[in-house]
């Protein structure tokens, strides 16, 4: 799918804010700027503090809305969670290079950890549902999985506390050998494991990386990640990378 060019929009209107779990929310905003699966926006809903906007991946998109699925992690996401319908946000985006959807064919596994499930819904919508398996890991109560079931996608869940699905990490219920393509998003250690399993099985894997960002557009170089091609910008060269090219530290 073609990555779209970004715009800066001040005062985009919040259409809805849903609380999915104790600390996971879905924010839907009125904007026609769209986004390809895997692209993201820099989002802010405050004047001065904190200084920087927050990078949030596109969770769902249609002609005149964009939704973000996010977890409250700190001051910025706390403020986002306080937004109600009618509230205003500033958006910069859509940004970055998303998933290489043209390469996604055959049997596809979407392997996610926690809030890493966020960018996968708009990706799954572009794929033939019968070819896709979502393998989603959570610390505890799962979220945002029912919508994949609605698409007709096979969903498997692992939880660390065993409250739902298989107890343990999602990587324990992921066998790369039965897939032709893998995409992953989640904590770095989990993606490193997925990348390792895929490399062993000889299955291509696309990984969507997360990083602290300042500009979000490729100018400041604070979100760089080590790759076999040298340092790459998560925001502008990614956030989606060929997992075999990332130098995984975890």
């Amino acid at each position, binding site marked *: 799918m073609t990555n779209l060019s970004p715009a800066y929009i001040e005062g985009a209107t919040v259409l809805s804010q849903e609380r999915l779990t104790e600390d996971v929310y879905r924010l839907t905003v009125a904007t026609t700027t769209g986004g390809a699966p895997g692209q993201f926006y820099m989002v802010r809903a405050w004047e001065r503090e904190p200084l920087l*906007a927050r990078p949030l991946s596109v969770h769902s998109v249609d002609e005149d809305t964009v939704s973000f699925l996010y977890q409250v992690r700190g001051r910025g996401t706390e403020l986002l969670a306080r937004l109600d319908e009618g509230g205003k946000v500033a958006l910069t985006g859509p940004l970055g290079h998303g998933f290489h959807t043209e390469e996604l064919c055959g049997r596809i596994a979407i392997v996610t950890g926690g809030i890493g499930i966020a960018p996968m819904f708009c990706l799954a919508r572009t794929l033939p549902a019968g070819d896709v398996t979502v393998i989603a890991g959570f610390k505890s109560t799962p979220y945002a999985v029912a919508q994949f079931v609605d698409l007709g996608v096979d969903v498997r869940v692992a939880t660390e506390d065993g409250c739902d699905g298989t107890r343990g990490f999602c990587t324990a219920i992921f066998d790369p050998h039965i897939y032709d393509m893998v995409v992953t998003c989640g904590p770095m250690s989990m993606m490193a494991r997925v990348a390792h399993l895929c490399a062993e099985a000889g299955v291509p894997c696309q990984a969507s990386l997360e990083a602290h960002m300042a500009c979000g557009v490729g100018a400041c*170089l604070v979100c760089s990640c080590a790759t076999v091609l040298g340092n790459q910008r998560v925001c502008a060269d990614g956030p989606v990378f060929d997992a075999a090219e990332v130098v995984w530290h975890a």
Partner: protein
Amino acid sequence: MLETTLCGITLKNPVIAASGTFGFGAEYSQFFDVGRLGGICSKGLTLHPREGNPGLRVWETPAGMMNSVGLQNPGIPVFLERELPRMRTLGTAIIANVGGDDLEDYVEGVQLLSNAEGIDIIELNISCPNVREGGMAFGIKCDAAASVVAAVRPVCAKPLMVKLSPNAEDIVAMAIACERAGADAVSLVNSFKALAIDIHTRKPVFDNVTAGLSGPCIKPIALRMVWEVASAVHIPVVGIGGIATWQDALEFIMAGATAVQVGSATFVKPTVMLDIVDGLERYCADEHLTSIATVCSILGTETPLP
């Protein structure tokens, strides 16, 4: 009203994108006509490519941010071949920011940039707090700063602006030393050497331990330094440090800055520099000023310097 002369170079206005916050201009061209800016300072360049620092590179603070990029850049030859031709199409003054690991690198780097067509001003970075050997090593002691300025001066055919560190032992003495060594202008301040600790790991947040603090939190200190330096030197001063609004920019101009550079604020709002240009224009119109230069240094130096 906003046309500004800096070291003999005519700028459309006194608002310049600060080095390291604007890449080579291409990224922000997606959001606005960067040709409306007074100028763009390139990402800090070194003779040889640098991968920059490992580990976390950014940390937010109240009213500011810390960075530890460590001069990641493609090297001057690649800049000249790949980035400069694109920058020249942007329609604004080009200021090449150059750092170095040692005197020889500075001299060779400046020489290459000086011979390149399309570069208007060379900004000598002696103030990067995030690289051990180069950069700030020359920005702490006056003697070291003077030696690097004196070394590059003979090979620099273009205006030479020296970017000063607020971490200098005495920033006024530093500015005077640079002026005497042949600088055509000074720009100040670069980021403040700062520290953040992760209380859970009981370790510094940054691999490099310290990092550079920028943003609105440094503005009053930067403004004081600009005022002190502008009061003490005869060359133009370019003000930098937490400028986020046209009122901030005007404060620096009133304190003695011929032009200003905007950095972190662009991360907050990609088009903020246009707001600053428009705001300064409105101010001149409202105050019936024929030129923004009429309020430059209007604060004067009546207050005795310490």
